[in-house]
């Protein structure tokens, strides 16, 4: 299982005032709020943590088919912050989801997986638009629960895919086709 989330940092700054009273405590754990306070650029930490929660939520939503809004239940740890690439995990109801975040000054793209093993078998795209060859002989379909798949037009085999749009950016992660 995979999930991703992309954030256009410029747009996020316009759309959300994370400094408003009560905002952080509604959606971040005490430990995460501390990470935001300690960060050299607090707003970058807000959106990094937020993208991790969203990416992990998409996996949980795929698994359970239940929609909830309780971001504080998703607890992030970032043991490996290399600046432009951050690795860590999100804990939700005793399940751990590993993630990798790719970031630059204008966007953050986080990809989460249900098992570490998937991290080596995914393709990740980040950019202003999706490469068209991705859809060669494939069509994007959604099942009855709104979960997207890339369907091979010849074999009808579905490849799990997660797509996220925000502002000028789009991010996609797909499981590599089994050969």
């Amino acid at each position, binding site marked *: 299982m995979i999930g991703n989330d992309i954030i256009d940092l410029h747009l996020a700054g316009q759309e959300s005032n994370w400094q408003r009273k009560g905002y952080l405590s*509604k959606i971040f754990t005490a430990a995460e709020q501390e990470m935001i306070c300690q960060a050299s650029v607090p707003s970058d930490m807000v959106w990094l943590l937020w993208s991790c929660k969203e990416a992990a939520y998409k996996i949980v939503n795929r698994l359970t088919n239940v929609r909830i*809004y309780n971001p504080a239940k998703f607890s992030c740890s970032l043991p490996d912050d290399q600046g432009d690439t951050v690795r860590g995990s999100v804990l939700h109801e005793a399940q751990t989801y590993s993630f990798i975040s790719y970031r630059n000054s204008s966007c953050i793209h986080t990809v989460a997986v249900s098992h570490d093993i998937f991290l080596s078998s995914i393709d990740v795209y980040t950019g202003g638009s999706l490469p068209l060859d991705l859809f060669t002989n494939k069509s994007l379909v959604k099942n009855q629960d709104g979960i997207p798949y890339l369907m091979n037009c010849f074999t009808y085999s579905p490849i799990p895919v997660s797509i996220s749009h925000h502002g000028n950016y789009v991010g996609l992660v797909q499981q590599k086709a089994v050969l």
Partner: protein
Amino acid sequence: MDKETLITQLKEIVKPYAKNEEALLNINENTDFVNDLKINSANLVDVVLDVEEQFNIVIDNESMERMLNVKSAIEIIEAKLGAQ
């Protein structure tokens, strides 16, 4: 407070965050904040905070979990106001 009044007040609250004007115009009990109004998930917390301020109530995380549509929002607001 009747349901129509509540929906009118909710409409004003979600207005700055809703990206689908038509769905906002036709807001009703069955309107979904995310699927219909296209409210960004990072702004759902603003809706929750605005509802808290407007109605002078506290929405705990357990209630917030369900606040994804007009129907649930009304149920939560009515329950919190009733408990006061």
